[in-house]
C-alpha cells in the first residue's frame, strides 16, 4: 500500500486514490488514420521501469495528477524528474 504525493494534500494513503492509467498522448485530431486512432486508444506504455500515469484523489480533494511510478520497485517521482 503506497503513499502518493497529491499536489494539493501532500502524501496520502493509496486507498484514498484511484489509478487512472498510464498517461496517453494528446487526443488525436479527427484527421488521423484509423490505425493511428486505434494505437492511441488501445496500445499503452507498458515499461518494466518508470511509467508515467494518472491518479485521481477520489476520496480526497478530487485532483487528477501525474506521477512516474516504477512498475517493479513502486518508487515514485514527479514527471519532470529524470527517470534515466
Amino acid at each position, binding site marked *: *500500500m*503506497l*503513499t502518493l504525493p497529491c499536489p494539493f494534500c501532500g502524501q496520502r*494513503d493509496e486507498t484514498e486514490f*484511484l489509478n*487512472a492509467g498510464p498517461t496517453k498522448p*494528446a*487526443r488525436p485530431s*479527427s484527421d488521423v488514420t*484509423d490505425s493511428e*486512432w*486505434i494505437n492511441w*486508444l488501445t496500445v499503452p506504455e507498458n515499461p518494466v521501469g518508470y511509467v508515467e500515469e*494518472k491518479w*485521481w484523489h*477520489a476520496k480526497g480533494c*478530487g*485532483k*487528477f495528477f501525474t506521477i512516474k511510478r516504477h512498475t517493479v*520497485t*513502486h518508487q515514485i517521482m514527479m514527471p519532470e524528474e529524470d527517470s534515466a
Partner: protein
Amino acid sequence: MTHNPFRQKAGGRIDRNSCVEFEFNGKRYSGYKGDTLASALLANGVFLNARSFKYHRPRGIMGAGVEEPSCLVELLGADAGGNYAATTVQLRPGLKAKSVNCWPSPSFDLMSINQLFARLLPAGFYYKTFMWPNWHLFEPSIRRAAGLAAAPDDQIPYQHFETRYWHGDVLVVGAGSSGLLAALIASRSGARVMIVDDHPLPGGCLRSSQTKIDERPAIEWAEAVCAELDANPEVTRLQDATAWGYREDNLLMVTERSPAETHVFQRGWKARAGRVILATGAIERNLVFANNDLPGVMLASAVQTYYHEFGVIPGRHAMIFTNNSSAYSLAHDLQAGGTMIAGIVDSRPSNAIGAEKDGLDIPLYAANQLQAAHGGKHLRAVTIRAADGSTKRVDCDLLAVSGGWNPAVHLFSQARGTLAYDDALASFVPDKAMQRLACVGAAAGKMNLVSAIADTLSTVTACLSEDNFKPSAFSLPSFTALPDYHLQPLWHVDGMKPGDKAFVDIQNDVTLDDIGLAMREGFDTVEHVKRYTTAGMGIDQGKTGNVNVIGNIAKASNKKPDEIGTTTFRSPFTPVDFGSIAGQRNGATVLPFRHTPITQWNKDRGAVMYEAGARWQRPGYFPINGGNMQDAINAEAEAVRYGVGVYDGSPLGKFDISGRDAAAFIDLLYTNDFADLEIGMGRYGIMLSDDGMILDDGVTFKLAENHYLMSTSTGFADVVFRHMEYLLQIECESWQVWITPVTSQWCNATICGPKARDVLEALGVSIDIGNDAFPFMAMREAIVAGTPARICRVSFTGEVSFEINVWPRHAKAMWRRIMEIGAPFGILPVGSETSHVLRVEKGFLSLGHEVDETADPYDLGMDWIMSRTKTHAIGRRSVDIRRSSGKPRRELVGLMPKTGGELVAEGAPITPNGDRVASEGFVSACVWSVVNKQIIALGLLTDGRARIGETIIIRDRERVIDAVVTKPCFYDPKGERLRG
C-alpha cells in the same frame, strides 16, 4: 499441588504460587501461571505430543517459540482454533488442547502405519501413482489424511477484531537487547516510536542469558528500559504482537493478540514509520542426522529457554550436539542446574573450540559427529562417530542440538532487501536495504551481544540524525563479556545408511534423501526442490530448516550456498488470524450501502428491496397482502397506465455543471447536439466511452446560459463523474467548467400516469402546470404543497410525469403528502420491477439489459442521436471504425414470444433454427405487458431491423420458443401520452 517431575526446585519466571489446570489430549495436567503449553507439557514429562505430517512418526517439542516445527496443537472450547505451535500458546486456566494430525492419540496413532510404507513415499511419489483408474478414487482419503487441525466453526461467541492506522517516526521490531536499546534512543530523541515484540514478555535472548548488564541480571535492565518507554506518551509498546508483513513505504502489518481494551479480541495495526529498525534476532537451526526428529531431540536454545524462563529441564541425562560455540552456554546452565550431561559432540576440531569450553567438567567429543539418534517413542541413545569413522553408542534422554544461527531476515527480505551469504555464519545476512530501514543486532548478523549493542547504538544514532532528530548523548550500559560466536558449517553428518531418515524439514517430513532424489530427477534449483519436496512450505515456513536445505543442495552440486540462493520470503512471518486483517471492516466497507429519506418508508410498506446500481437500496415491488410478484407488478403498472403511480427517483445521479465552457463541454460529452437547447428545457442524451461503447444516458436541463443540471443513470453516476473530471482536468485544462455533484441535495418523488396532473393540482402547486405553460421536457421552480421544489417533466414510463424535486429535509413530508392526496386517485408506489415493465412497453433503453458493453446507438435504432456535425464527440470515432468493418450488427428489436403466457428468461440466446450453435442475438428483456395483455420482449438480433415480421427461435436450454420480430415499441409509438 502441582506435580511437575521435570520442573526444577527453584528458578524460572513462572509464578509458582498460582497453579494452572489444563487439559491435553483428554488428560488433565497442571502448570504455573507464566508457562506456555509447551513448557507445562515438558514439566509434566509429556514428551510425545505430536505425529508427523506424512509418515506419522512420533514427535515432541523441539523449539521454544515461533520457530517450533513439530508440536502443533488445536485449541478447543471458547478459544477454538487450529495449528498453533504449543510453544506460542500461553497457559491459562481451563485451557483445552489436542495434538493435530493423529488419531486417537500421539502415542497410539493409527496412521503411523504409514511408517511401514515409508519407502514407498519419497518426495513427489504422488505424481507417479494414484493414476489408475483415476485420482478421484484416492483423493478423498488423501485429503482426510492431510490438513492438520479442523477448521474453526461458527459456534464460538462473536469476537470483535479491529484494525487501525498508526503514523510515527520510528518502528522497532523486536524487544530484545538491540530492539529495546533502539527504541530507548529513539524515544529520548523525541521521536514517536512503536516497538513490537511477538513474545508475551520483553527481553528476547536476554531472558535466557547469564549476561549481566551494569552488574545486574540482564533482564532487570530490559525491565527498566520498558518502564521508561511506557512512561513516554509518544511510545507505543506492543508485546504478544507479531509484525508479519512489510509493505511499501515502510508500512508494517502488525497483529496484536491481547489488546488492553477488553472489547477488542485482536487488533491489526497498519503502522507506517519514517524509519524501521529490524531487531528481529536470529533463529537457531537444526542439524541433519538420522532420526533427528525423535522426541527428546531439541534445539539447544530452546532447552536453555525452558531452563531460564520456566525452570524446566526436559530430561535427566543430556547430550549436546553442535557445530558452533553458542551451545556451550547451555552446558554451563545444565551443569549449574545439576543435570547429568553425557557429553558435548562438537563437529569442529579441538583447535577451533575456544573459551566457550572453559569451566566445563564433561566429556567433549571434538571433531566428532552425532550420526544417529535411537529410540522408539523417545530418545534412548545416540551414536557418536569419530573422524576415523569409528562409532560409539551413548545413552541419553535429551539431545540439545545447535546447527548455528540464521538471522531473522524475513521482514528485511519482504521489504525487497537483498541478502548476502556470510561464510563465517554459514547463513544469509541482510545486504542492500530497499526501504528506509536498518537491521541491528543478531538480525544484522551481529552474533556477539556486546559488539552488537555497540553497533546498534551507532546505527540507530546515525538513522535518527539522518531523519533530523537530535539523539542525545547516550552511554552504553556495561555488559559482561561472552565468548565469541564461532561456527563451522555441517550440512549433514557422515556415515548415514540408506533408508536412514534425516530430516531437513521436520514439519513436512522432508528428508535428506528426498533432496537427493529431487536433484537426481532434474529439480536442481532451490525453487524446484522446494516445490517438489515441499520443504519449507509448512506452517513454520522452514524457519529451522531452510538454510539446511540450501546448504545440502549446494553440497550436492558442489556449489557455494550463495550460488543456490534462497526462496522468496513471503508474508506472513507467522500465521495470523484473518479476523485481524479485516478488523471491523465488513461487506459495507467494500460495498457501502446508501439510503434515501424514503428508503425506510418503502421497507415499512413491505417492499421487497433490491440492490440497485451504485449501492442504493431500492424497492423492487410492493406485495399486495401476500400476493405474488406478478400480481404486484400488474397492479402497479396498471396504476401508472390508467391512474397514477409514484416512485422515489432520488438515486438518479445529478450534477450541477456551469462555467464559461459548460455548453462546449456538454457537447463534447454527448453524441447529440445541445447547442440549441432553450433555457428551462431538458434533452435526452447518450454518452460514449472512448471505445465507442455506451457509457450512460440521461436528461440534461439548461438552467441558464452555461449552467446545466445533468442527470445520469443511478448505477453510473460515479463513473460519469470520474469521466467528466478526467476530461476537464487532463484534456481540457484551459476550460472553465465547474461540476458539483448534487445527487443527495435533491430528493425526487415522480408522479406519473394519466391522473398525475390532477394529483399535482390537488397537492397545491404555485404555477400553471397545463401542457402549454409547462410542456414535456421542461423544468420549473414552484411551491408544491407549501414546499419549494423543482419540477421536471421527463418520463421513463411513457406517461405524463412530474418529477418533484425537494430538499431531503422535506422529502418524507412531501412523500407522505403525495400518498395522502393521491389516495382518492388510487395512487400506488411503484418499484423497479414495474418501471422495467413500463420502459419495455415503450422500448426505452436500460443499461445492463439492451446495453451490454457491445451495443452502439445505431444498433439501438438511435441514428438521430449521432449528430452529423459533431465528429469530435467522445467515442464517435471508435463507433465509425467499428461499423466500417461491415460485420453484421445486432440491432434492437421487439419480440412477441409464442409461449403460453410464460415469461422468457432475460438473456436467452436466439440461435439459427434454434440449433445448439453460436447465437445470433439474445432476449434483453421480457415482461407481461398490462396494456397488450401478453408477453412482450426486447432483444438484440443480427440485422434485426431488416427482419421485422420474421419468426426467430429463442433457445433456453431444452426450451425452444418461437418469437415474431417487431418494432421495439409496444405502446403509444408516437409518444402522445407522455407529451399529453
